[in-house]
Every structure is written in C-alpha cells, then in structure tokens.
C-alpha cells in the first residue's frame, strides 16, 4: 500500500487547518487569542499514545466520528486552562461545576465541527461525529484507547498543539483514526505516484527503530551502570518549518552526526544539562560531583553519543544488509531548537516536509533522560523502505563471531 508524500502533506495540512478553524471558533466564543503552534502526523505504538501528557491533569471532550474516516478525536485542555476558558465564556461559571462542564462540552462540540468539516469537504463526503463526552483524566488517559490494527501495534495519530500566548497554557487536539480507513483514504487521494512510500513498511521501520532505541539504551546502561529504559519511539511527519519545534527551547547537551547511506540524514542525541552531568559522571572512573558542565563531562558525552548513535542506526543497516556511515560526533551545548534548526534547514533545501524519528529513554534511579532525534532525507528514506524486506525486520544484530571466525 503506497501513499505519496504529497498526500501525507495534504492530510497534515487538513489537520492543521482543522485545528485553526477549531481555535478560531473558540476565540469567537471566549475572546481568547490562541494560535495553533504545530500539527504533525505521528506513527507510533498504540501503547505509547499520549505518553507526552504524563504527569498532568486534563479536562477533555471526546468524540467518535465515522463516515469515510472512522475513529476518535479528543480536545484536551489542562485543568487550569479549562477553568479560564469557561470563565472567559461565562464569568462566574467556573464555580458552578455543572455549568463549567456544559460550557466545555459545548466549546468542544463547536471546535470539533470546525476540525472535522475540512476533512469532509476535502474528500467530498460526510464525516459524522458523536455528541461530546466530557472527561477528566490524568495524563494519556484523557485519550481513548487507540484503535486496533491487525498484526501491527502501530497507529497514526494526528496531533495539534495550540498555544495561548498570554496565559502560556497549551491544549491539544488529538485525532486517532482507524488505520484501515485512514490509509484507504490516503491511497484514494494519491496525487502523483512518483514519490510514494510504502506505508505498511513504515510500521516495520518503526519497529526496527524501537529495537535500535533499546540497543542504545542498553549501551547507556553498560557504560554507566544506570538501568535505562527505552520509552517512546515514533515517526512523525510535519512541514519542514515545524521540525525545530519538535525540541524544546531549553538548553541541551549532546552530539550531532550526519549519517550517509540508505537511509541518510542527521541524528542527534540530546540530554538536558542535569542528565548530561549525571550520565557523564556515571561513566567516569573518578568521583567528580560537579554542578557545572566541564570539558571532561563533554568528552564523556561525546563518546556516549557516538556509541548511542551506532546502536541506533546499526539495526537499520543490518536489516537492510547495507552500511550506514556516520561522521564523528560533534558536541553541542545550546538551545534545543537552535540545534535542530540548521539541520532542518539543510534538509529543507530539498524537501518541504520531513519525517522525524524520535526516541526517548530514561531511568528512575537518578534524574536522567535522553532523546534521540533522526532527520532522514526523504528520498533516502523512501529508498530504504523500498529495499526493506519485512521478513528480515528482526535481524537487527550482527554476528561478529561468524564474520571473524
């Protein structure tokens, strides 16, 4: 099943415009001036959907929709912003629980129509949505269970992040379509067939990357003695100008490499400053116990980044029976977004949209979190997917003994 990049771009645009329409409706009802910060399509394991919401409480309005597209969609406000919204709509109403709830439901209802209508118009068919269902949940539980998808555990999620500048509160629109109905719709709306990617293989590729992340996490554990769990691995698709927004504005420490072969692109391993110091000290034979990031810390991070990078990309090469080379790591210590920016610009010279592969790992023992982001060149990624033999997908390891016998 092939889907062309152009139609993925169109779908992303539909979700973005839908979110803008929804945000505008809310603005008319509340006077709140909010903007849609970023919209992306993400392919990830269904168990990981909503992981990024962990640790926060949400008020949500949930709908199911059916027609040419089937699935669920949710508007998730964090608890405080829900209060502010109802207050703006009807002053005093946030104290009256039933009224506040009804206000949120209705806002949700109107926003959701705005969100869905563009899709229906695009496909020239109707998409109906159910009455709003009000929910209050913690973290990812605000989202419905992701739809089942046959043998695969992967689902597509459309996510828009809406930012409300004055209050600095964010809210989200998630759409979780049934895999089948979505991909059928994508296939039907292929504009050209020149740049099509085999969408089913993208799932396999994602699974390979998950094992690459696990390998990278194992490497961290071996070098530091810190038990490290790989968390989420996902592939997202977004306009190139939204790529740097995938990373926070905080300061990060890490490594960046360019990788070449099939696929090719850029890969960064990033730690927040505290994690960087913690992990570097765990690698060092001597006690440092420093609060400041020193050159010794950076040297340790440089090699850790190098080893994590290899762990991450080796699986691709082994499954594809090719080699993926990478440059020696360059150490970075800068604003996260500014690190991604020149890489997005370099990729953006040839393409308007990009796939971004994101992985995360962490540990409960000490404060430690690492992110891996890969920005593959679209053409090379397509070639990699074309070459991918799904049967070999688990052959991510190499047998040194066999080769050096």
């Amino acid at each position, binding site marked *: 099943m092939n889907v062309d990049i152009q139609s993925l771009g169109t779908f992303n645009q539909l979700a973005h415009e839908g979110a803008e329409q929804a945000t505008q409706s809310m603005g008319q009802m509340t006077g709140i001036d909010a903007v849609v910060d970023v919209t992306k399509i993400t392919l990830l394991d269904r168990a990981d959907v909503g992981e990024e919401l962990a640790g926060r409480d949400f008020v949500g309005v949930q709908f199911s929709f059916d027609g040419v597209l089937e699935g669920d969609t949710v508007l998730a406000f964090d608890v405080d912003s829900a209060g502010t919204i109802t207050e703006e709509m009807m002053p005093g109403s946030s104290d009256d629980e039933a009224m506040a709830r009804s206000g949120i439901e209705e806002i949700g209802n109107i926003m959701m129509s705005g969100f869905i209508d563009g899709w229906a118009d695009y496909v020239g068919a109707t998409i109906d949505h159910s009455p709003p269902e009000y929910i209050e949940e913690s973290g990812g539980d605000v989202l419905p269970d992701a739809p089942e998808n046959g043998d695969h555990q992967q689902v597509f999620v459309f996510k828009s992040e809406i930012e409300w*500048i004055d209050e600095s509160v964010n809210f989200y629109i998630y759409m979780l379509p049934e895999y089948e109905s979505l991909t059928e719709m994508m296939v039907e709306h292929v504009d050209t067939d020149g740049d099509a990617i085999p969408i089913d293989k993208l799932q396999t590729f994602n699974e390979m990357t998950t094992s690459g992340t696990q390998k990278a996490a194992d490497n961290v554990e071996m070098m530091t003695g810190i038990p490290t769990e790989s968390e989420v691995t996902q592939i997202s698709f977004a306009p190139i*100008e939204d790529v*740097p927004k995938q990373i926070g504005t905080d300061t990060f420490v890490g490594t960046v490499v*360019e990788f070449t072969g099939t696929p090719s692109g850029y890969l960064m391993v990033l730690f927040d400053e505290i994690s960087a110091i913690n992990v570097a000290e765990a690698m060092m034979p001597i006690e440092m116990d420093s609060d400041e990031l020193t050159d010794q810390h950076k040297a340790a991070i440089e090699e850790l980044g190098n080893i994590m990078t290899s762990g991450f990309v080796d699986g691709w090469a082994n499954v594809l029976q090719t080699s993926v080379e990478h440059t020696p790591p360059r150490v970075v210590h800068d604003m996260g*977004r*500014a690190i991604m*920016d*020149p890489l997005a*610009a*370099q990729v953006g010279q040839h393409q308007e949209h990009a796939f971004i592969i994101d992985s995360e790992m962490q540990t409960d023992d000490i404060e430690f979190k690492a992110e891996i982001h890969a920005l593959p060149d679209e053409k090379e990624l397509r070639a990699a997917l074309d070459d991918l033999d799904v049967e070999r997908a688990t052959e991510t390891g190499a047998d040194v003994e066999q080769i050096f016998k």
Partner: protein
Amino acid sequence: MKVYDGSQTESPEQSTPERIKVGIAEYKVTTEPAVLTTSGLGSCIGIAVYDTRNTVAGLVHVMLPSAADIDGGNHAKFADTGIEALIEAMADAGASMEAMEAKIAGGSDMLDFSENGSSIGSRNAKKVRETLDEHDVPVVGEDLGGDHGRSVKLEADTGNFIVKSANTDSITL
C-alpha cells in the same frame, strides 16, 4: 497575515507590553508598543524592521536564502521573499519606507556539515543584506555568525533588539 491593530485590547491599564511570538517561516507586524519575539535561531535569521516615527514594527524568521532555489513553501521561509513580504505588510500598516531601519541576528555556522561551499547561515546572511539593500532599508545593528543559537526580542516602540544566546548574557542592538 495578522496585523495587530489593538482594536481588541481589553484593558487600557495593561502595563506590560503585549508579547507577539513569531514562529519559524512566519512574520508579524504590530502598530502597538508590543514586543515581537522569536526563538531558536540557528542558521535561521531573525530580521527586525521598524519605523519608530510611525510606530510600526515587524519581525520575520527566515530559514533559507532564496525562494528561487526550491519550489513551494510559504514566502516567509526565505530571506528574499520573506523580507519583501514583511516590508510590504509594514508599509500597508502605515510605515514609511524612508524611516525603516533593520537589525538582524542569527545565521550561525553551527552544525554545518557541508564539506565545501559556504554554510546555510552565511548564505542566509548574504541574502538578507542583499534584499534589505535592494529595498534601501539600512542595517543599523547585527549579531550574525558564530557557532551558537540565538533568541531575539524587538521592542516595537524603541527599536531595541535584544539578542540572547544559550550560554552568554543578552546584548541589545
């Protein structure tokens, strides 16, 4: 394009100026004493243009040098078309061409993997200068190049342009 004309400013006693965020490949224009901000400039460049006489200010965050090099994409993504669009929008909002001045920051060479040829950061800088020059808008302040990222703030009423890097104190251009 959004022109903030203040018609929906609710509270006149509001003391802190409004903050207007400008994303990558976006531009915004204001006629209020607002603060325009953009963050995470690596090889990208933030171009601030203002006319303090008429209180019109604008900021554009461009990513690549020229729209001619790639098809598609919005104008504000490129130095040449982005600056042009910004200047036009400012003129529409009442700025006078003669009074416009520009300050620019960004265009870092960080993480440039191209083995030969110049970095995107320096090509961006070249195109930004060229385009501003074509429109006779003088560059009165700049902080370009280097190997670090930047975030910027433009005070619309003063034309002060504050540049912040991750590991250093901010400077005002």
